[in-house]
């Protein structure tokens, strides 16, 4: 596995900050909890900012009665939206378990809410890619 300045990667795993985890686990954690990947790599400030931004976007989206879109047969675009929705990680799981995110189509803020929810998910997926880039040494 490639090496970078801030992290050391080897056949056993990735060591950054206080964590020594295999890269797939690190990426999975990064997806599951927004900002956790950066925190485990020792980027505390960025981790805090990323977590705050993603959580804020997600909460605002729910408050605006947006929908956590899941794949629907006959609607190809719903598959793309579902990728972004699931990209929210644990926020998506918890919201679904609590019965939130069904969306109110008739609400004036419905589409705005969707926009916030999808944006938050896409940002979290970008964070996973960023963690990967840091681990392989493409980025400091």
């Amino acid at each position, binding site marked *: 596995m490639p090496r970078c300045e801030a992290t050391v990667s080897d056949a056993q795993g990735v060591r950054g900050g206080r964590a020594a985890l295999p890269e797939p686990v690190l990426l999975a954690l990064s997806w599951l909890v927004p900002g956790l990947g950066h925190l485990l790599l020792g980027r505390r*400030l960025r981790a805090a900012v*990323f977590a705050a931004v993603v959580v804020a976007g997600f909460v605002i989206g729910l408050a*605006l009665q947006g929908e956590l879109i899941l794949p629907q047969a006959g609607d190809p675009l719903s598959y793309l939206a579902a990728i972004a929705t699931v990209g929210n990680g644990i926020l998506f799981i918890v919201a679904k378990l609590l019965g939130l995110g069904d969306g109110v189509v008739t609400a004036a*803020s419905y589409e705005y809410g969707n926009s*916030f929810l999808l944006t938050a998910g896409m*940002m979290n997926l970008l964070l996973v890619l960023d963690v990967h880039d840091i681990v392989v040494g493409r980025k*400091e």
Partner: protein
Amino acid sequence: MLLVVQAALIAVFFAFLWKRDAAERLRYLIKVFAALVLGAVALGWLMFPIPRP
């Protein structure tokens, strides 16, 4: 208002994602925020003549 909030969130996110230096981050944040808000308003004006279905 919601547009401004979302633009702010996205601008902060990308400023911290792409830039390391604080001053550089601030400049980038302002640029992205302005581009998103002004771009959306400009697009809204351009779409104004298009009739609703």
